[in-house]
């Protein structure tokens, strides 16, 4: 090869220098592009074993294809799963919402029907169809972020549907935003990034993974720490607290007033 002969004339540069420079240039520009676009398309498909994919495909055909189509292309009853990503499948199946029980305004959380291996297999299969949001890593969902910042982000983006501390709230025509107490950090992350049912999608450009971690930290803090104000009354706010005051406290005041004016026996 020509480049190997060049060394004989006393050049200090290695014959492989040209190759290395080209490789470095490609890596820099290609890596730069990948990093810049990684924010929105937040997934590089993780490699799943062929056996897991086959298991996932079989489970999919047996349990999901009747509504979602044999190629996950969707039918009149259910939307397409192409591009929803492993995070969607893990959220819907591992919380028990899928397989969907009955059509109505909203799917309800039910007892989980699949084991963890089966859920992972189906998630891997759906993820293999097209790139989509990935299941978050343990580091991404650990509750060691900034709970104050998480609280501010939660109040701006989430509290209007889910209540100021995640106790849940009503939407139109029978839909509702569920309470967030007892939901695992993984499922909270997955719900934010995939936007299940009528929940909007909070992609990584809107709420960065750092923001999502802060929100999870805030929710876990609220869940684990008692309210400084005493009995929370399910965190439902002024209506419940007012009812408590009017029934019990005012009742006590009326009882004392009646006793005050009554004659002694």
């Amino acid at each position: 090869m020509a480049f190997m002969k060049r060394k004989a004339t006393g050049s200090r540069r290695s014959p492989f220098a040209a190759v290395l420079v080209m490789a470095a240039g490609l890596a820099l520009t290609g890596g730069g592009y990948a990093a810049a676009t990684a924010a929105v398309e937040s997934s590089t498909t993780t490699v799943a074993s062929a056996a897991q994919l086959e298991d996932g495909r079989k489970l999919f055909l047996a349990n999901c294809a009747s509504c979602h189509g044999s190629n996950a292309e969707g039918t009149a009853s259910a939307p397409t799963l192409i591009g929803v990503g492993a995070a969607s499948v893990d959220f819907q199946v591992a919380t028990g919402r899928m397989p969907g029980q009955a059509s109505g305004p909203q799917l309800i959380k039910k007892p989980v029907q699949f084991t963890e291996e089966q859920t992972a297999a189906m998630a891997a299969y759906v993820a293999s169809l097209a790139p989509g949001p990935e299941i978050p890593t343990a580091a991404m969902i650990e509750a060691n972020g900034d709970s104050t910042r998480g609280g501010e982000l939660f109040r701006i983006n989430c509290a209007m549907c889910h209540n100021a501390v995640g106790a849940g709230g009503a939407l139109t025509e029978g839909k509702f935003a569920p309470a967030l107490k007892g939901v695992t950090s993984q499922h909270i992350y997955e719900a934010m990034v995939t936007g299940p049912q009528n929940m909007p999608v909070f992609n990584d450009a809107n709420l960065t993974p750092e923001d999502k971690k802060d929100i999870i930290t805030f929710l876990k803090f609220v869940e684990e720490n008692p309210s400084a104000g005493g009995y929370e009354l399910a965190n439902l706010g002024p209506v419940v607290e007012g009812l408590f005051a009017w029934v019990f406290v005012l009742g006590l005041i009326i009882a004392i007033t009646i006793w005050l004016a009554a004659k002694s026996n």
Partner: protein
Amino acid sequence: MSDKKGLAAAGSPEPEYDYNGGLAVISGDKMANPGIEPHRVRMTDKSPKHEKAAARQVSLMFFASVFGSAMSIWAYFAFPLTEDLTSVRNNTLWLGLGITLGLMGIGIGAVHWAKTLMPDTEVTEARHITRGSDEVRARAIEIIKLADGESGFSRRKLIRRSLYGALAFFPLPAIMLFGDLGPNPGDSLRHTMWKKGTRLTKDPTGTPIKASDVTIGSVFHVIPEGLNELEHHKLEEKAKAAVLLVRLEPSDLNEAEDRKSWSYDGIVAYSKICTHVGCPVALYEQHTHSLLCPCHQSTFDVTNACKVTFGPATRALPQLPIAVDSEGYLIAQSDFTEPVGPSFWER
């Protein structure tokens, strides 16, 4: 008349007065005066055992009060406030219970003492008629005439009239203070911070938003660029300029002809301030394309320019015309074309 008997019975020092009501119609009592109910003897008067028990109860209440006050002092030291929120809860609860017991113990004890042990004979208090006797009235007129004569009020015209002038003018400075109820808002409700070219930025960080970041089904909470750097009236401006950004399939949007240029490839921006009473309308339902206000449940249809489909709001949410600048960031084309938020008189 029965009231004459009542006055005499009460031993009133007033002379019996035959009240002539003038033109008023005086009807006789429709209901016979039942008098005072018969005296019922208390158990504590009949039985020394009950009396002793009542006395014990009263002193028990007072001891409970002492206990309560001591408990609240103990609680102050036993539950210091720490990082743990449970400490706040305990501190407040036991301090409060202690003080409540301390005060209510005294109150309940005192009332119980009065009811059970103090004398309970009935007493009638006389109620005198308001009008004085003729002698009293004549004497009153005499005194007034004397005062007038000695002060010279009627005689001295200059003093009297200048006093009237002073009394008429002295409330006027107070009326001036009503001026501090302002300032008049002028046309501040008709304009917001949005101008041609203002970038749409995320709430609360203020980072600009690229059109490619907004994917189908996502919702961005938007504030205008420069809001976080405002020194004065930041909250007032935020309360008018808050915007919700959503992206729909362009085929789902039914846009009016003159508003087709206000969206960008299915991305639309609407004012977040409800046109009913002003709560932030941000409950976006991704599939039904409904925008719900949490306060009174006004529902707006994003596919039809946020027209009201349910609830007490009567006007659609104002739309912010948006475009994309040369770097791909979303910008406003202009301010809103109508005032945002609830109705006001001059709207």
